[in-house]
């Protein structure tokens, strides 16, 4: 019994009617970017046809409509993640830009040589490279929380790692392993040693009920395109006091209150951090995506993903036994729906290539997590990830295509 009527959901996604290489499209790469329901496409189209104008500038009717819709989207995002106030949600291009905003604005005005930042071995490059850049530029020390052989964070040495650290930057859910990290205890430990916490919530906001207030985190970054929305927009949530105290990130229109030949004053939140014309149409699409997920109910989304992941793990193990290695926790209740694996003797790219022949889309490669791949000791894995529009038939199509890959490459 699924908590979601997947057949009905599938019907809402026009792209899922596509045929690839003579096979119906089986899309198993939502962890990279999700597909869009018709409601999102229509909302964006409707804006362009009826109310498109730049926001916060014109006094004419459609400019006011566009501005109101844009701010309504911000309010929807805030509500969706349990943020106390919409003005704490800063629209960015994506999660990567949100993390860079923190690295440039907060970290560069608060961290000096010798300060430490704690990361984990399961971070995406988006939550690694900005800190490496800072380390190079400022002589900031990076410390790494290791992972255990069960693919979860090894918290034994956490307090030591956090000693005198200024920031803990941690993913809420790994895009490679699927591992879901329990954020509140991490935040407690970090706050107890005086460090702030940035949560990369890219892989959790689309799949789990999110409550940034309950997390008690300081910064939270995520992207619209992984949650049925368009690419080109994401958000940073942070507590007002932090945002008020931070210097602006990019300079330009919208982020100012006044400009003279010798200086400027910044606009109030959230616009202080939104220089230039934002992704207006995309914000409206994001709102529609949130409406879609809220209609399904995030508890139902989660229940569906646990059930489909359980089926996928079980079916892969039953069919490939010791010929498959799955990199991630076995317990579907402790993980998200991204399933990374290697078939014995077959490179991940060759697997994807054969799967494509059957219309099955999976990701192959390092998944922008090279430090993690080094820890795992593999150059690349295949990754199937499941979302609201995937059902057991999709898993079966994956298994059958994988069997063909085995046949094709049989030694």
């Amino acid at each position, binding site marked *: 019994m699924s908590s979601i009527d997947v057949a009905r959901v599938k019907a809402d996604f026009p792209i899922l009617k596509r045929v690839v290489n003579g096979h119906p499209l089986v899309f198993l790469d939502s962890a990279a970017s999700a597909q869009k329901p018709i409601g999102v496409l229509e909302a964006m189209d409707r804006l362009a046809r009826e109310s498109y104008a730049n926001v916060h500038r014109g006094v004419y009717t459609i400019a006011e409509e566009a501005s109101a819709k844009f701010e309504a989207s911000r309010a929807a995002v805030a509500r969706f993640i349990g943020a106390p106030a919409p003005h704490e949600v800063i629209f960015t291009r994506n999660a990567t830009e949100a993390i860079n905003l923190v690295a440039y604005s907060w970290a560069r005005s608060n961290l000096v040589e010798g300060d430490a930042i704690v990361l984990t071995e399961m971070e995406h490059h988006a939550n690694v490279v900005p800190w490496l850049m800072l380390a190079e530029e400022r002589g900031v020390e990076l410390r790494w929380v290791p992972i255990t052989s069960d693919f979860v964070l090894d918290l034994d040495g956490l307090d030591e790692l956090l000693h005198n650290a200024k920031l803990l930057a941690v993913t809420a859910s790994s895009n490679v392993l699927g591992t879901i990290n329990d954020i509140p205890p991490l935040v407690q430990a970090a706050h107890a040693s005086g460090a702030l916490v940035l949560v990369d919530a890219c892989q959790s906001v689309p799949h789990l009920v999110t409550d940034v207030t309950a997390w008690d985190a300081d910064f939270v970054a995520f992207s619209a395109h992984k949650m049925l929305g368009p690419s080109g927009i994401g958000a940073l949530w942070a507590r007002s006091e932090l945002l008020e105290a931070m210097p602006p990130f990019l300079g330009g229109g919208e982020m100012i209150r006044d400009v003279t030949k010798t200086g400027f004053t910044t606009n109030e939140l959230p616009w202080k951090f939104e220089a230039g014309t934002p992704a207006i149409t995309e914000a409206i699409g994001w709102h529609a995506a949130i409406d879609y997920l809220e209609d399904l109910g995030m508890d139902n989304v989660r229940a569906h993903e646990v059930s489909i992941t359980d089926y996928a793990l079980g079916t892969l193990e039953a069919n490939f036994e010791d010929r498959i290695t799955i990199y991630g926790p076995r317990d579907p209740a402790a993980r998200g729906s991204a399933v990374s694996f290697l078939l014995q003797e077959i*490179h*991940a*790219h*060759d697997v994807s*290539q054969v799967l494509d022949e059957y219309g099955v889309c999976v990701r192959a490669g*390092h998944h922008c997590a090279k430090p993690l791949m080094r820890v795992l000791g593999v150059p690349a894995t295949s990754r199937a990830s499941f979302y609201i529009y995937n059902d057991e038939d999709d898993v079966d199509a994956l298994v059958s295509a994988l069997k063909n890959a085995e046949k094709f490459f049989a030694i």
Partner: protein
Amino acid sequence: MSGLEDLYREIILDHYRAPRNRGELPVPPAVKSEGFNPLCGDEVVLYLDVDDGVVTDLKIAGQGCSISQASTSMMSAAVKGKTIAEVRQLTRAFKALMSIHESKLEGEQDGSDLEDDLKGVRLGDLEALQGVVKFPVRIKCATLAWNTLLQGLDEAT
């Protein structure tokens, strides 16, 4: 399966399953050269013995997808015993084999330069890799060995 069979010709799978010239050579006198494809983690390591303008021996190590590893194995068989001039010509011809089709796809170039590159060069088994050009993301897998070879030759000469 026709597309797939075009990409994974039997001879390619054979080189992938039973790569030729695997191993290492003592450095020096051999030159070691390494190539990476950062996108997929393919890695090619070459050991080259160049004596009097001739590639007298070469060994390969590394790991990666079937196309990169088969291409490396086929390259090693093709260049062993050849003069550096011949190897460079072969490399140009192989790259032309990859890009003739690229430029045809783009509908540009009449291909006359490329024909020059191919003139008088016998690619032999290497022609089996032609199918790769229909899968643009895999061209890098096929050319990795040859670019790594060029690096090694530059160092050895």
